Each structure stands twice: as structure tokens, then as C-alpha cells.
């Protein structure tokens, strides 16, 4: 993190009172969500408070505060430049990988501030996995090695048998096993675009993360592959908290439980307009901007 001295990072830890407050808010959100499970089942995976992010001198997101529900799919929608991807990258500390990038505010995963100086970024990324917009399998590796790579980075499994088992399980979870089981030794880039993206999802699942961040995972895919990835997300929801950035409002309304709408402010920094249960946000938004956006009047 390259936070300069004039923008010190607040490293607050959550007091029990704050936690209670958050739960109350989560319950309030839930009441309006007719499709949601019962209020006492709602669990917060990630809380974001006053998050701002910069690339060099340019602020790209401003003062975002939002709660992310566990075992649900949260969609982040909004026009280009509204900071959707940057927000996602702040959630697993990938934002800071870009030279000159910095952020302020807090992001807590289950009450732990992931920007705490004692926290190792790699450990955050192990818990909060990310799938990129472009399929990016390692070009010099086989299908098998691509899926096994995260286990090797992090020493997750011991022995060939355990590794074989992990690779098969993740490929099955990503609905790719039947298509590749006879050619695990082939190069990862020999697959089609849709298969490559599912390979990348399998690779992220091999991390055994708790949260999946997906940055427009279907934007490079054809409609059939898109459908496969969306079905996959629905099945993964039981075990993972999923946050998906999408340009496609139909996709957001199809797959997500909660939707957050971002817009670009006059200072060209993105900000959160509102966040609500998906059905509510699309049918009865509180903010006029949201209504204009979801009805296709801008963006």
C-alpha cells in the first residue's frame, strides 16, 4: 500500500456495537428482498467503509460504503468509468499492484480489516479469489497445471493423489471436467474462449477461497458460454460469496440477489448510488439516477 502521509489509512477494527449496527442494517436490507432467506440467516462477508481509490493523482472511487452478504451473489452495475472494477480490485488488494495506485478507508472480511499492516496481501487473495474479464490461463502450462498452480503457490495440498483430486473436483465444479478429462496435458490456451474462462474459474476455485470476485467474466464470451458461466455461479452460491461486476443489466437481474449501482460523479470519480435487493433495485429504485440507468436512459 502506498498511502502517503497526508492520506493516512484508518485502521479501525470493528467493535461489537458496530457489528450489531451492521447486522441491523443487513436485516433492513433483507426485509425488502422478497426472495431472500430469513433475516437471521443473513451473514455479512465483507463490509466496505469510506473506501476511496486513486490511480496517481486521479481519484477513481469516492467514499464507498457497502455491505456484501455471504452466500449470495452481489452484482455491481454502472456505466463505464464508475469505478466498478476498481472497487472489486480493492476487495482483494489487487488495486495496489498497479504502480501509483492507492486507496483509503476500510475493507473488512468477517470483521478483519484486510488492509491492516499485519495482514499479508497474498493471504487476502487466497481467501478472496478473483476471475478476470479476459480469460488468462497460463500459456506455458497444461490444463492440469493451470488448475494445480494455486495449490503450488500456496502449498495447499500434499502429494500427487491429493492434487489430482483437487484438480478433478475444481474442474467438475466449474463444469469443465467432461470436456477436458481426456486432454488434461494439453495447453490451457488450446481451449475455446468459454472453456478458458471456466478453466480460470476452476483455477480460482482451486484456491479454496471463501469469496469469488468476478470482473465482467462473460464480456469476452458468446451467449452459450455466458449461460454456462451464469449457471455455474448459481450452483457456486451455496459455498461462496460472489461479487460480479457486469455491464449487462439482464445478467445482473438474472443471476444476482443484491445489486449495487455505481455512477461517475462530476469529479469523474465513481460512487455508490444505491444498493438493494436486485428485484427492488430494478423495479422500484429509490434514486432517479438508478431508475434512468436500469431503464436504459443513459450509460
Amino acid at each position, binding site marked *: 500500500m502506498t498511502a502517503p502521509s497526508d492520506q493516512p489509512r484508518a485502521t479501525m477494527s470493528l467493535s461489537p456495537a458496530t457489528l450489531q449496527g451492521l447486522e441491523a442494517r443487513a436485516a433492513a436490507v433483507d426485509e425488502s428482498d422478497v426472495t431472500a432467506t430469513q433475516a437471521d440467516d443473513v451473514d455479512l462477508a465483507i463490509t466496505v467503509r469510506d473506501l476511496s481509490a486513486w490511480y496517481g493523482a486521479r481519484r477513481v472511487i469516492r467514499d464507498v460504503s457497502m455491505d456484501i452478504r455471504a452466500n449470495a451473489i452481489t452484482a455491481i452495475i454502472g456505466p463505464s468509468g464508475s469505478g466498478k472494477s476498481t472497487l472489486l480490485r480493492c476487495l482483494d488488494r489487487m488495486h495496489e499492484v498497479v504502480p501509483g495506485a492507492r486507496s483509503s478507508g476500510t475493507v473488512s472480511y468477517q470483521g478483519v480489516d484486510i488492509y491492516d499492516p499485519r495482514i499479508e496481501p497474498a493471504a487476502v487473495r487466497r481467501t478472496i479469489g478473483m476471475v478476470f474479464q479476459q480469460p488468462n490461463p497460463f500459456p506455458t502450462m497444461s490444463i492440469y497445471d493451470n488448475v494445480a498452480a*494455486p495449490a503450488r503457490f500456496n502449498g495447499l495440498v500434499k502429494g500427487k493423489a491429493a492434487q489430482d483430486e483437487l484438480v478433478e473436483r475444481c474442474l467438475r465444479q466449474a463444469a469443465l471436467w467432461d470436456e477436458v478429462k481426456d486432454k488434461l496435458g494439453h495447453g490451457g490456451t488450446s481451449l475455446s474462449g468459454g472453456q478458458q474462462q471456466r478453466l480460470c474459474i476452476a483455477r480460482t476455485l482451486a484456491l479454496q477461497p471463501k469469496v469469488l470476485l468476478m470482473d465482467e467474466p462473460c464480456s469476452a464470451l458468446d451467449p452459450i458460454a455466458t449461460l454456462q458461466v451464469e449457471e455455474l455461479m448459481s450452483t457456486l452460491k451455496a459455498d461462496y460469496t460472489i461479487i460480479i461486476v457486469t455491464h449487462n443489466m439482464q445478467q445482473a437481474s438474472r443471476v444476482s440477489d443484491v445489486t449495487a449501482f455505481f455512477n461517475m460523479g462530476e469529479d469523474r470519480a465513481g460512487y455508490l448510488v444505491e444498493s438493494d435487493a436486485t428485484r427492488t433495485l430494478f423495479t422500484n429504485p429509490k434514486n432517479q439516477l438508478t431508475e434512468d440507468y436500469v431503464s436504459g436512459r443513459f450509460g
Partner: protein
Amino acid sequence: MTQSAEVPEPPRLDLGGLRRRGWTGDLTFRAILSTLTLGITVVLGVMMVESFISASPVYQKFGIIGFITGSTWAPSFTVYGAWAFIYGTFLTSLIALVIAVPVSVLIALLLTELAPARLRAPLGIAVDLLAAVPSVVYGLWGLLVLVPAMRPLEQAIAGTLGRVVPFFGPPTPGSSYFAAGVILAVMIVPIVSAVTREVFASTPRLQREAVLALGGTRWDVARTVTLPIGRAGLLAAVVLGLGRAMGETIAVTMVIGNSDNIGKSIFSPGFTLASVIANEFNEATETLHPEALIALGTVLLVMSVLVNGAAIAIRNRFTGGSRSGF
């Protein structure tokens, strides 16, 4: 409305800004560039032909193959063979590569993956500046500092490994193929590391981030993505370094020991093609001696062209391959 009586001008096609401007500028520019480019090629060709003709008495006496493979160089007996110098050129270049390539790769990795962003530029410039040191300074430093300093190391190797393998055996007079190789290594590190750095820096960002997002460390980035994707470019850098090492003259002449014979050990004194020319040309008064040295120059020229051609071919395959690769 006083001009209402005026007859309107007949309509004329107005080309405006689309009108073709004078194109003598383009022609002149093209002529200058073509001449310069052609000129360089002609110079290379003339050098090859001229040196071949000048040296032809040597080829007539010994034959081209006989000259290249002949291992005796005895000007006073008018016997000339290039093999000892070809051997010396290859051996010193090989030693240089064995030392310089790992060092350059590590420097390039440090500067692209590991060093803090604000240190990368200064460190990179410092390495690049090594290339600006005149080679005679390297030669002096080698002769006065490096050769004496390496004596104990050479003696240790010759006394242990050298007892089993004569190639690493004694004697260890100091000036040697090994000393020349070490000096060459220092001299080619800047070029090899600069090219390697470019190659590593062009690693697709998406690949780099894939490793980091999977909980990988910077070392994981290096071994999973940077090195495998950059291996063709690395090969090109190595061959480029080889080309430089083969042609280096004065620094090698100062530390290689200047012996016409093929040394049995890497610690023996010897000669390279470039250094024997530099060392003997001024006093080449024997029969055919100047011609034989010119012939050595031709051999070196052909070897350099081949090696640099190989570097270009590898680089082209690398840049062509990267487009379809991912």
C-alpha cells in the same frame, strides 16, 4: 447590394485541403534514407569481399579449410592456422556467457519484479552505465585488480577439480582464457540484462496479475509467468551477448596472456581472433603474416554475422510467436 450586377464566377472544383501538396520533400527524404541504408549494406559487403581478396594468398597456400582447422601459428616458419584463436574466441565467450547470463537474468528479475518501484530506474541506469565504461579501462582493471585477485580461486580450483579434470588444471599464471571470460562477462552484463529486462517487462499484465490474484508471490510470478513466457527473448539476449563477447578486443588482449598455442586448461594463456589481430598486426613483418591476420578478421566477421543473424532470427520468431501465443 452594390455588387449585385457582378457576373458570378464560373464554378470551379475546389480541392481545398485535399490538394496534393508538393512531394519533393518526401522524395528527398526517401532518397537520403535509402542511400544511407544501402550504404551500410554496401560497406559490409565491401569489407567481406575486400578482406577475402586481401587474404587470398593465405587461402591459396593452406586452403580455406586447412587455414581454419590448422592449429599451428608460426609466422617465422610461414605456417598459419586459425584454430587456436577460434578455440580461444569460443572458450572465452562461453565462460563469459556462463557467468553473465545468470547474473543478467537475476538483475532483470530484480529490476522488473522485486525492486521497489522508485529504485528500479536508478538501478537500471547504473547497470546501463557499465556499458559506457571504455573497454581499455576494463582491461586495465582486469590486469591490475581482477587477475591478481582471482589467483587464489584459480589455484584452489586447479588444485582440487584440476587434479581430476585437466581442463581445470594448473598452471595458473593469472592471465588466461578464464580471466578474459570473466572480464567479458562484466562487459556483456549490461547488454544482456537490458534486453532481458525489456523481455521481462513485456510480460502481459494479465498474466502477472493472475499469479498475484491466486495468492502467488513475486517469485511465483517470475517462475510461472515471466521466465517461461520470456524464454525466447532471453535466448535472443544471450546470443546478442555472445556476439559482443566474440568481437571484444582490447580488454581481452590485456588479460588473456597472448599465447599462440591452444591452452590445455581454462587457466592457460591463449589468444582470441580479435586479440591476436590487435596484438600482432603492428609488427606483422613476416611473409604472409598480414594476410593471415586479415584472414582471421574475415573468420571473425563471418562468425559475428552468423551469431547476430541468429539473434535476429530468434527475436523475430519471439515477437511473431507472442502474438499468436496468447
